[in-house]
């Protein structure tokens, strides 16, 4: 049991990295990866929200959607949950942890529309993980997201100082970089048998 959870965690971080292998959450991956500091901020916010939302969505799936046989509402219910959860976290955090609220800043509301979060909640159900497994999967997945974001930010900080050929400047070099990074992460496939 224990070793399986560890393998699952590594699998979620490296082998099936949310951004670079599953291609979820590409928008923040390209949008908030200009500086390492902000990338870390965004990553932390995602780890927090993903873990919370996977707990709640798992409970809702198990105790509401399945018993009443309304699985087709999964997507809309999960979106509802994530949106309100992000809002709730924001309200509570502003009062109780102003320092953290300041640090996360604009990233919290941004997360509400992050597909990696919805994707993770749905993957939890699709892979029929139990409660503990889905939490581990959520933490692993979001750490993988943070890792990808920070790696990309590190590269882009360097890239800002490099002389890039004119046709490749801007978004195109970012996409090429992302592709190469993704290619590198594909190398992890087979590390863990999923």
């Amino acid at each position, binding site marked *: 049991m224990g070793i399986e959870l560890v393998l699952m965690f590594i699998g979620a971080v490296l082998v099936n990295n949310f951004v670079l292998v599953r291609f979820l959450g590409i928008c923040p991956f390209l949008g908030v990866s200009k500086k390492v500091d902000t990338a870390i901020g965004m990553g932390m916010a995602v780890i927090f929200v993903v873990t919370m939302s996977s707990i709640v969505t798992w409970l809702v799936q198990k105790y509401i959607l399945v018993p009443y046989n309304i699985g087709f509402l999964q997507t809309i219910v999960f979106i509802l949950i994530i949106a309100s959860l992000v*809002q709730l976290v924001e309200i509570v955090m502003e009062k109780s942890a102003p320092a953290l609220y300041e640090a996360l800043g604009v990233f919290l509301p941004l997360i509400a529309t992050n597909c990696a979060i919805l994707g993770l909640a749905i993957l939890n159900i699709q892979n029929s993980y139990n409660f503990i497994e889905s939490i581990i999967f959520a933490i692993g997945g979001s750490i993988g997201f943070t890792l990808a974001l920070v790696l990309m930010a590190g590269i882009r900080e360097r890239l800002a*100082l490099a002389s890039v050929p004119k046709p490749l400047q801007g978004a195109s070099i970012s996409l090429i970089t992302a592709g190469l990074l993704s290619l590198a992460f594909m190398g992890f496939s087979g590390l863990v048998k999923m």
Partner: protein
Amino acid sequence: MFTIAAYSLGGLGLIFALSLGIASRIFHMEIDPRIEEAMEALPGANCGACGFAGCKGYAEAVIKDPEVVPNLCAPGEEEIAKALAKISGKEAGAGDKKRAIICCAGGEDKVERTFTYEGILDCESAAILYGGNKACKYGCLGYGSCVKACLFEAIEMNDIGLPQVDKNKCVGCGKCLDVCPKGVVKLVPVTATVYVACNSMNKGAQVKKICAVGCIGCKLCVKACEKEAISFDNNLASINYQNCNDCRTCMEKCKSNSINVCM
């Protein structure tokens, strides 16, 4: 099926709406209307001279924190200090205004370049390559990062490839200090009349080899100063402006002409 779906989705929505509503009541945050007033009074340049993250950060701090004084806004000068003092109910005070100076006199005519740099023309990129191509590793690289960073167009490059600060335009925000990879730009009080135009921590003999106007660490200025306002640190003279009485003896005594009059 339809009713169950409608009820459960509606129910969930209702629960979330209620919990959000309750949470916003419990965790209600009072926003002080004075913060908005202070925001409006500030120039909105977000230069960061006050030491806070933009004008909003300063507006919040000046209202909430009793220890934050209302005269930190450098570009706003007295007018805004008074306005902020009125809004926050604090005393305006004089405040010590500062301005930037370039602590290097080793222009193209005095210090050689060790190699030809063909990269992006800004100092941060140039400094990544072996610490820049100036013979003096502490000197101004002359690619004008500070010129670009200045929000008030107070810095220009002069004929010998050194930046020059226009003291009438400089508001002392310190933006240029952050971008200079060599730390050549420093802030001095606006009242200062002399400054050490060198940033080199090399030993005297080494300085002499590469730069005609560098501080060689002879300490003649220290001995000459009656007020003991000059100190030495890492082979470099520095002036303590609180003690300086503007006698300019140090400038006359300086063998390498590295103590200059503030332009």
